């Protein structure tokens, strides 16, 4: 291996929170990296999330993207190509050579980073796959009527509505809001047996934001189990249970009523009841990244049992963030730090070996 062959010590695929965090962590260690983002702008999913603070910060991590983008732009060790797609990857003598192809970027792609100009090939000591997970498409659970009944939205759509101020005093003020948990998670029959880990947290936080903005609004939380975790929730759940109606019953369907969507669920006596709401929010889960199959093929990485990117892959290949399994923003940042640390050790060992 000749170190002169290396174009960039570490190549990071994906410019979301995980990819940017890995790049910043490498930069702190004095290592240069190249981040490749498929879309015209970096940021990934985190850019669509709303701040969930009420009286105090809810530690949801949505604001950390802004800091990361600014930090990535300010660090000269980080090169960011947007609108770029990986078309091939080959490993030889311990080094990866990855070909990139430009994608249509639009006229005014926001920075940081610049659209990839032309096809190019980069040789690197380590690759970090940070392509994120795929949010479940609620059309896959047609009985919950997303796209069919007005007033039914995915939680991702609610994030945007709350971020834009579309719900609150002077805007939309629903009298009754329902959250339905585990849409595309804990669904062995649907081929998705895993818990997506973040949905109880984001749903309860957004429920609290709605109650904070609109104290008259009643919020119902339909769930199988509350699978939230962490220190804060043990303290906060009792007060949340006073503020929000917790119903431990997975609804069977959402139907169209005259006043809006209706949720059919096993009522307190066990028999099915139908209750009307103004808004029904489907708490969609996180699945394997879109195109995971082609990433497995390109890099020779094995999928894990659920189709996420397995963390044990060929030498010099690392995975960061939700591509390896459902993770919150904060967990993705931590996980990316681990991948960066491993990649740095790998590159250090390669250079050490080259020096003999």
């Amino acid at each position, binding site marked *: 291996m000749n170190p002169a062959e290396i174009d960039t010590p570490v190549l990071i695929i994906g410019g979301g929170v995980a990819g940017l965090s890995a790049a910043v962590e490498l930069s702190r260690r004095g290592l240069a990296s190249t981040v490749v983002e498929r879309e015209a702008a970096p940021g990934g999913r985190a850019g669509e999330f709303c701040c969930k603070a009420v009286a105090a910060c809810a530690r949801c991590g949505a604001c950390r993207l802004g800091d990361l983008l600014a930090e990535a732009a300010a660090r000269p060790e980080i090169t960011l190509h947007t609108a770029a797609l990986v078309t091939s990857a080959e490993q030889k003598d311990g080094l990866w050579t990855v070909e990139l192809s430009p994608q249509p970027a639009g006229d005014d792609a926001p920075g940081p980073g610049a659209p990839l100009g032309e096809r190019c090939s980069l040789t690197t000591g380590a690759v970090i796959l940070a392509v994120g997970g795929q949010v479940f498409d609620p059309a896959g659970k047609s009985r919950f009527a997303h796209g069919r009944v007005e007033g039914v939205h995915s939680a991702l759509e609610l994030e945007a509505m709350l971020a834009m101020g579309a719900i609150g005093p002077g805007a939309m003020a629903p009298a009754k809001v329902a959250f339905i948990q585990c849409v595309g998670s804990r669904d062995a029959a649907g081929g998705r047996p895993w818990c997506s880990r973040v949905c109880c947290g984001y749903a309860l936080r957004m429920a609290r934001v709605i109650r904070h903005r609109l104290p008259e609004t009643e919020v119902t939380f339909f769930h199988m189990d509350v699978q939230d975790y962490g220190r804060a929730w043990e303290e906060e759940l009792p007060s949340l249970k006073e503020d929000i109606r917790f119903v431990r019953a997975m609804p069977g*369907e959402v139907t169209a009523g005259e006043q809006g969507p209706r949720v059919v669920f096993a009522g307190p006596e*066990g028999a099915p009841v139908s209750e009307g709401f103004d808004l029904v929010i489907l708490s969609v889960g996180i699945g394997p990244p879109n195109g995971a199959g082609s990433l497995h093929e390109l890099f020779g990485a094995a999928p894990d049992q659920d189709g996420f990117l397995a963390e044990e892959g060929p030498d010099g290949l690392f995975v960061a963030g939700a591509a390896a399994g459902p993770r919150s923003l904060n967990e993705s940042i931590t996980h990316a730090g681990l991948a960066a640390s491993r990649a740095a050790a790998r590159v250090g060992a390669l250079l050490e070996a080259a020096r003999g």
Partner: protein
Amino acid sequence: MRLNDCDPGFKHQVAAEPGGEGIRVCFGCAACSARCPVGANRPEYDPRRIIRAALLGRREEVLASPLIWLCSSCYTCGEVCPQGVRFTDVLTAIKNIAARAGHAPPSARITAELLAKQGRLLEVTEFENDKRAELGLPPVEQRPHDFQSILGLEPPPEGGEGEGA
């Protein structure tokens, strides 16, 4: 409820019956109850409550309950179950245990007698076979012997199971 009244082995007995193994993976989300057409008409019929009672080992209460015989076998519960539990089949397992324990209601006995006599619940008459002939379908016969041998009412016929089924 007293713990001493519970039989922790009951769920294993249900799981050991054909179709009963689904009881092992239920996590009680009540999607089944939400869609049950029987529950919509008989509020006391609640699939989640039945499976929960079985899991808790409330053996006598489950086996003696008249509710377990109300299932219409529409399988909607199985359609919506995230865990792939076929509650209809779990309930069949429970009903088989109940029947062996002498809890079968008169209607179940009448059903069994009809099957033993006719080989099917509805008697086949010329009317059915005329209709089938109009549709180009072969006639059906009453074949009570298959069921009689299944029910142990007479020895199986010579040369194997059934009558050339």
